[in-house]
């Protein structure tokens, strides 16, 4: 509402003339200024200015609903992930109107999760009986249509006959630059309405930002953070207004920092020298570990963060690191021909937790016999 042109609002003709002579064009231009500045630009008295600004503020007030009204909407707008415990914990799976992020090292399965979620959304039977489409924005050219076909053939063999219909409902974008991604997001609202989009997947949001805006100086760091934050705001706005679920993927970054002295004997670290397990508080050793990329501000922007990491060469782990509804929890999964398979056993949850921006992630071990510094999953060591 704040982008509305002043000339289109029902205002006095005289005020409109004064506005036409000033540099103010939209509601936002006026309301970003202080009352004194508006008075000076439009030659108004204090009372006139107050009445004028109040009128403009009234135009901008968003819709008023109660939490009770929202509860019905929420049930219709969630996408089940296919595992009962996980979906119960998330109060229904992935929710429309918020950003869910999958962060993890390379090869752990982020793109596989995205493909899996795309298929689940397209196959979901919605109560309103209208079929939704999926927008897939692929910045790393990792999308493989044949993988989609493979997953459907293996996991949902009863749907193979309608596979063409499902494939026609997944739309792919492959932007190569930050500016083309920004353009896509600008045009997204129109397309989302035309094509009934219900799920938007961005794989990955980190790669373009990190390639084009390297965080070499503090200036470029701020530029990147601002770009990410404005993308996040745009995505959330579209997500909420058009009832879309947004899934993004993130990469990892190395953090080379002294071991925090408050780590107690609960969490054990592998000492670099002799490869044996030691009680972990060592404020002298330096640990080289990976954490989710893109920084602290981006961690604030996402609503839900799932961290994916390796447990051993075959199985991987999904950790709910940040969620407004779920406690800190871990789930094991593997990747098969039929997509993601979440194991029923081996899941844990706890009311303690850790900072989702600093969570130490285990990377893939190429040679299991080489000693490397890493932290074990917390659940192995809790009493």
């Amino acid at each position, binding site marked *: 509402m*704040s982008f509305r042109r002043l000339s289109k609002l029902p205002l006095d003709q005289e005020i409109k003339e004064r506005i036409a002579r000033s540099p103010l064009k939209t509601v936002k231009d006026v*309301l*970003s200024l*202080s009352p004194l500045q508006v008075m000076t630009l439009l030659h108004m008295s204090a009372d006139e200015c107050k009445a004028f600004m*109040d009128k403009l*503020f009234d*135009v*901008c*007030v*968003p819709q*008023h609903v*109660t*939490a*009770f009204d*929202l*509860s019905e909407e*929420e049930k219709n707008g969630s996408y089940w992930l296919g595992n*009962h*415990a996980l979906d*119960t914990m998330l*109060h229904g799976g992935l*929710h429309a109107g*918020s*950003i869910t992020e999958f962060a993890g090292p390379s090869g752990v399965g982020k793109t596989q999760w995205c493909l899996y979620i795309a298929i689940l959304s397209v196959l979901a039977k919605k109560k309103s009986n209208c079929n939704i489409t999926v927008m897939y924005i692929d910045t790393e050219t990792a999308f493989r249509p044949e993988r989609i076909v493979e997953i459907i053939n293996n996991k949902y063999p009863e749907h193979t006959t309608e596979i063409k219909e499902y494939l026609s409902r997944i739309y792919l974008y492959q932007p190569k630059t930050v500016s083309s991604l920004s353009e896509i997001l600008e045009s997204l609202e129109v397309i989302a309405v035309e094509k009934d989009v219900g799920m938007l997947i961005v794989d990955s949001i980190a790669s373009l930002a990190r390639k084009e805006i390297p965080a070499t100086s*503090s200036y470029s760091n701020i530029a990147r953070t601002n770009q990410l*934050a*404005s993308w996040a*705001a745009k995505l*959330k*706005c579209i*997500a*909420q*207004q058009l009832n879309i679920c947004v899934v993004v993927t993130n990469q990892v970054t190395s953090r080379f920092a002294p071991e925090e002295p*408050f*780590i*107690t004997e*609960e969490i054990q670290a592998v000492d670099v020298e002799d490869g044996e397990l030691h009680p972990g508080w060592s404020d002298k050793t330096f640990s080289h570990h990976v954490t989710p990329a893109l920084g*602290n*501000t981006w*961690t*604030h922007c996402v*609503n839900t*963060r799932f961290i994916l990491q390796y447990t051993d060469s075959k199985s991987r782990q999904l950790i709910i*690191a*940040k*969620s*407004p*509804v779920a*406690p800190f929890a871990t789930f094991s999964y593997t990747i098969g021909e039929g997509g993601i398979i979440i194991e029923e056993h081996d*899941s*844990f949850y*706890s*009311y*303690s*937790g*850790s*900072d989702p*921006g600093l969570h130490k992630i285990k990377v893939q071990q190429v040679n299991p016999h080489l000693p490397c510094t890493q932290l074990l999953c*917390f*659940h192995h060591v809790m009493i």
Partner: protein
Amino acid sequence: MSSRRALSVLGLPAPVVTKLLDSDFIYDDDVRGLKPVELSLASGLTLKESAEVVRMSTVSSAEQPVSVLQIIEDECDVSHIVTFCKSLDDLLGGGIPLCAITEISGTPGIGKTQLCLQACVSVQLPSSVGGVGGEAVFIDTEGSFTVGRLKDMATSAVHHVQTIGSDCADLSGFTVESILKGIHYFRCHSYIEVLAVIRHIPLLLQSHPKIQLIVIDSIAFHFRHDFPDMMARTGLLCRLTQELIQQATKFNIAVIVTNQMTTRIESAGSSQLVAALGETWGHCPTLRLTLHWSGRTRVATLTKAPHRNNSSVSYQVTVAGIRDLSNLSHEKATSIPEEIPEAKKRKLTSD
């Protein structure tokens, strides 16, 4: 504008009125605008008498001072919103205070939104169990507001109330549905919309006079990326605070504002996480609470309070909401049963 009144009808003592009439002061607007000293010289009244005349004749819109004794006697029984975590309530002096702005800042995922949701439920506790009995306004800029989570907290609160106050009359109206209906939600996609909602609150209060909590989650999101001009941002934030504090004191409302953290580079080259939005913003809220991790537990630290010491307490976020850290020092990791188990809800201390 008041109509012209004769000085003789204002209720002044007769000798004073006579002296005034003798000096040609007949109506109240003859006297208006004069200082007591001037009136005293002109009419021959004593200073005290002149002051009384001037006061009686002006339509006084300026604020009158109130004695501290009066304030203490007038203070309503409940002036805090409990958080259901006893140590946090003790830290804050009873809970989130009314007529003040409380800022909650913290790293992502620490529980700021959870604390806000808990306050939205606690504000509705009926007065017979020591609550405020009011409604809440939730201004959401982040999109983390989930009704499912709110329902968990509401269910636990209703259960708690029924356990401790089973024989009071007005408790039957306190249900999960009534709690959900008492939370007014606004989703804002720009800082202009946040300002617009705040300006709209007095109008909202006319149709919903029970509102006693305003939550803005978070104030930082839209103010951090859209502003090339820092000074304009600070100006807007200060004006916003002024509006909020006026409404808070006039209508007996508590305001909770959540903030994000940003990295500040110290001169030595090391960096530190501090609350975002700058130093000037830091002066705006009345109370500042910072939430952070200490190992695996969550800690709340009071960093600015006019009447409490700066100190820290630990708390945890459970399925029931914000609660004290239990005596078992660390929660055991357990395998997930069919549903989140009932037994995880803490036994609450009855207030």
